[in-house]
């Protein structure tokens, strides 16, 4: 798996009203990578994700997945949205099975894989619940299971925990980290939460707003045996403070 974002720019609108949202973004993700894009609102980080998902087209530059240019949305790039995008009329199991049904897998295969992925996210007991009967954190776990069950090459996470309470967010970060280690999935995380990015990602790109661009990239080589310890380790805190200063200076330049 190799995803390459190559000198991508994106403008919205035409002519004089055209607004440059992304300016010359380049990065790449290899199989098994966990990469994060961090920036304040207006930095265009969600637009980067929508471009990779194929929900928008770049104005300039190219996005290639295993050498093939991205031309539209497809099941090789799974997506988890910030707002709970579960189908309210389907059960949890129905939601997880949905992508496989769209792809026309056999019934027995769907049943087997649905059970497996419900188990992976720890919600086998909730299989028959409707989304409204589940908590926000559970709903996001189902959304992640649904995306994974469609067997994407890369999982795109757009502020997946942004709408959750702090406590639940921490346990979800723990969950995502374990999932990544166990399954070896490839993930791109969009977040405005610097700590979240540093906890989970091996590579973090900092984005500046107006127009959105990558201003700093760091690889996070920290010992991640437990996230709880990592959160308070001196190396982690030093790195976080360094990058937080960088982010603040970007916001300060705007004021």
């Amino acid at each position, binding site marked *: 798996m190799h995803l390459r974002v190559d000198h991508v720019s994106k403008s919205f609108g035409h002519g004089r009203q055209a607004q440059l949202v992304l300016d010359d973004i380049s990065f790449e993700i290899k199989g098994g990578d966990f990469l994060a894009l961090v920036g304040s609102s207006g930095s265009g980080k969600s637009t980067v994700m929508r471009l990779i*998902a*194929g*929900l928008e087209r770049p104005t300039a530059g190219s996005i290639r997945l295993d050498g093939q240019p991205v031309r*539209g*949305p*497809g*099941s090789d*790039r*799974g*997506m988890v*949205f910030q*707002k709970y*995008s579960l*189908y*309210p*009329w389907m059960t949890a199991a129905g939601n997880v099975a*949905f*992508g496989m*049904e*769209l*792809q026309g897998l056999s019934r027995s295969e769907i049943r087997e894989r649905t059970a497996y992925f419900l188990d992976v996210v720890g919600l086998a007991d909730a299989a028959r619940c*409707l989304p*409204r009967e589940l908590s926000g954190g559970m709903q996001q776990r189902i959304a992640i299971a*649904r*995306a994974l069950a*469609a067997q994407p090459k890369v999982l*795109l996470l757009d502020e997946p925990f942004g709408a959750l309470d702090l406590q639940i967010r921490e346990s979800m970060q723990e969950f995502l980290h374990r999932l990544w280690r166990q399954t070896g999935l490839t993930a791109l995380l969009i977040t405005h939460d610097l700590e979240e990015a540093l906890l989970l990602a091996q590579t973090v790109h900092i984005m500046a707003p107006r127009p959105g661009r990558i201003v700093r990239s760091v690889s996070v080589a920290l010992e991640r045996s437990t996230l709880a310890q990592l959160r308070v380790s001196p190396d982690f805190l030093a790195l976080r403070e360094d990058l937080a200063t960088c982010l603040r200076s970007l916001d300060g330049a705007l004021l």
Partner: protein
Amino acid sequence: MASSRLSSWRRGVLHPWFLGVLGVAIVLMLWAAISATALVDPLFLPSPGAVLAAGQSQAAQGLLWNDLVASVGRVFGGFALSAVVALPLGITMGTNPVICRLLEPLMALIRYMPAPAFIPLLIIYFGLGELPKILLIFIGTLFFNTLMIMDAVKFVPRELIETALTLGGRQAQVLRRVITPCIAPQVIDAYRINMASAWNLVIVAELVAASEGLGKRISLAQRFLRTDEIFLGLIVIGLIGLLIDLGFRLLMRRACSWAN
């Protein structure tokens, strides 16, 4: 003891049906009381007993049943036609901006033409039979049904559609598996609301030209100053409307339990 009795009394009062039934009962009692005191000429305000008697007499003659079948048949015929056309049309307008821009101004214009004003034209075109009445109901409800369905489609959350696309869904699958179930509650509700206009229209059509039907019966009753039969007609129309409304609500509860 006293407090538990009080709370059970309060529960009874707060039961959703209780106050509604009470409201109807109060009006019925007022009606009976006023007609009993003979303050108002019975020609203007027939007593509940007289209306009931008129109902029994019409039922015995078989008129009531015939009128019911005629009116209900027209409503269902015209409305079914409208519902069947409005669903694909509304979905197409909601998903395709070009067709929406093409048709929306036209529909907004026709929607403001009062449907009863089409009656003379429909009579000239199709005579006095069933067709013009069914078409009147069709014209009078089609545009409301279509525009309400179009709005429901436009309000389908973008994430639900985009999720299906990133799961490998094609356009046709998105339409069938995401948009259709998502708008089902609003479609049922649109039908429930616009059914009321269908009832208005059938009565108007029958007042103008018909040989049977609840509206026709009312207009005949007027000719013979039979206010008891007019009251009867109005009450029957109201009750059937209420029944249809409840039917749609039941359908909603059964088919779209996830939306409650």
